[in-house]
């Protein structure tokens, strides 16, 4: 084949809403003269397209929370952005929220970019009724009379199946599921272009979790937002996300459509991750992986998975494999899969 068939014209693919390029965010500590670098995010590049739910999966300490903190501009020492850019379509020219002037950040925050966090208690002010919380967050972004604003909030709460009476309640008076639904309503009331969701259902019971995921999906479809959805739960990813990136030790190792990842994982780590999940109804023996995730303060050289990898070769401990698009929309960083492209 001389040329690949022309891809169908896809304006959304041409202009991603979020483009992360070679992002590096390290924790730099200096205790008693002992300097330590923890490379929590080390050279990550990916796009989130308009109108999709992009999932990010990884174990604890794989750097996924640091990655979304950096994307959201929540950078406080000892965390530092060492290199790379984060470009939102609605915030062009700065290369990241952390570099934009505060006035710009205030303009886009909540209106264009909002968050759903794991602990709803941390988002909702415990000493204010929900009505006041909604006003605190969203009133300045919605141009309407007080009456219209209240009506908009009530209408929006109905989307997450909450009654208008919750507006008079304090957060502690609501159940965990109701609180999380209220935070989802809060995050979506301004119809933001982009929502960052960090383990939003992890603290919920399984029965409630399924409802809440359905609501996130429903609202996302309705208002056409893009979502960056972070969780370690592969079941949630299979259920909700459109595309999925797999992180291991601060780097992205594989990315593809979610169905593709589950059907045909290529990276040895992803393959293991998918095959180790027990399923109700089958009795196949599942294995854990030998070894343990590396310390990010002192990661192994080359591919960070190589000490645990069944396919490790000499090159793996010497050089870092690049993310290579093996097939349209399927990228993987592995010498054993892509072949060694080194000179």
């Amino acid at each position, binding site marked *: 084949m001389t040329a690949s068939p022309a891809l169908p014209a896809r304006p959304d693919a041409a202009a991603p809403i979020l483009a992360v390029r070679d992002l590096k965010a390290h924790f730099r500590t200096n205790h008693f003269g002992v300097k330590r670098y923890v490379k929590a995010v080390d050279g990550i590049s990916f796009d989130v397209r308009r109108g999709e739910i992009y999932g990010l999966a990884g*174990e*604890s300490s794989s750097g996924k929370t640091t990655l979304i903190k950096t994307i959201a501009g929540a950078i406080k020492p000892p965390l530092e952005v060492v290199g790379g850019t984060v470009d939102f379509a609605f915030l062009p020219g700065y290369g990241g929220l952390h570099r934009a002037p505060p006035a710009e950040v205030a303009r886009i925050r909540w209106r264009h970019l909002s968050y759903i966090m794991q602990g709803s208690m941390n988002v909702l002010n415990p000493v204010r009724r929900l009505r006041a919380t909604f006003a605190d967050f969203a009133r300045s972004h919605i141009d309407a009379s007080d009456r219209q604003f209240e009506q908009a909030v009530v209408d929006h709460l109905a989307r997450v199946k909450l009654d208008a009476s919750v507006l008079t309640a304090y957060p502690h008076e609501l159940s*965990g599921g109701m609180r999380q639904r209220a935070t989802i309503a809060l995050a979506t009331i301004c119809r933001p272009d982009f929502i960052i969701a960090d383990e939003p259902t992890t603290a919920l*019971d*399984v*029965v409630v*979790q*399924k409802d809440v*995921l359905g609501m996130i999906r429903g609202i996302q479809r309705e208002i056409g937002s893009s979502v960056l959805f972070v969780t*370690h*739960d*592969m*079941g*949630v990813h*299979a*259920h909700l996300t459109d595309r999925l990136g797999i992180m291991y030790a601060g780097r992205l190792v594989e990315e593809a459509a*979610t*169905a593709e990842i*589950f*059907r045909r994982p290529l990276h040895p*780590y992803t393959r*293991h*991750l*998918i095959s*180790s*999940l*027990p*399923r*109700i*109804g089958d009795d196949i*023996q*599942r*294995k*854990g*992986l030998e070894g*343990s*995730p590396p310390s990010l303060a002192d990661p192994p050289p080359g591919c960070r998975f190589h000490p*645990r990898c069944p396919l490790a070769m000499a090159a793996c401990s010497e050089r870092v494999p690049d993310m290579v698009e093996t097939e349209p929309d399927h990228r993987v960083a592995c010498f054993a899969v892509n072949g060694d492209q080194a000179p």
Partner: protein
Amino acid sequence: MSNALLEVSHATKVFSRGGLLSSRRIVAVNDVSFRIEAARPEIFTIIGESGSGKTTLSRMILNIEQPSAGSLVLDGTDLSTVRSNRDRLAFMHKVQPIFQNPFEAFNPLKQLDRYLFMTRQRFSAAVGQAALEAAVDEALRKVGLSLKEVRHRYPHEMSGGQLQRVAIARALLSSPKLIVADEPVSMVDASLRMSIVNLFRALRDDLGISIIYVTHDLATAYYISDRIMIMQNGRVVESGDARTVLNAPQHPYSQQLRAAVLLPEVTGGTAPANSPST
């Protein structure tokens, strides 16, 4: 009837909250009965969501909480009679706990091998350093570690999976008959989780230890359990053989739980339906 390892009959636990005038009674565990045979070691799983009383029940089995009504009998000893130090030591000999978060279970300022040596000394007459080390090493080897890897290490130097293995090794030092594991893998990384779960299986098969596995995760419960018991609001709604119950739950709540499990696979695609790969 004397050969039950653990017999829980009509166990009930009521917590009272509030003051004199406005006290509220919360029935955390309501009339729960089950029995684990001594002759047949098994993995008995208690499933429930938050607030179902599964943790309170496991704390009663560990004799950390006393039941408000009903009784728990372990190996012929009623737990309510275990009060003196000697009785407690004998009790701990038979039952050992494993907790959810190994980083909280171990003191961060204490070296891990000290825990293991202390536990060993408590449960057997001191017989000298060499025998002590051999016993600790043996327990660690049962969980896939060795004393060399653990000696002089602090908890933060280990991964969650390794630390949970150390916790299991510590529990094994008293050669218990029953291990109560409360959400033992929910804090452990996905890539290590199955090795811990498989380890429980090995403890049952090779060492004849019964395990009470408390969890909300139906998939791992299905994977390792012999019998399961589903709890809701302190009551048992369904119990029985794990395969039977989870494949065809009868109670509406169990059916709801079963339906809420998110399968780790994408449905509706073009994947061949469960055909064995060639």
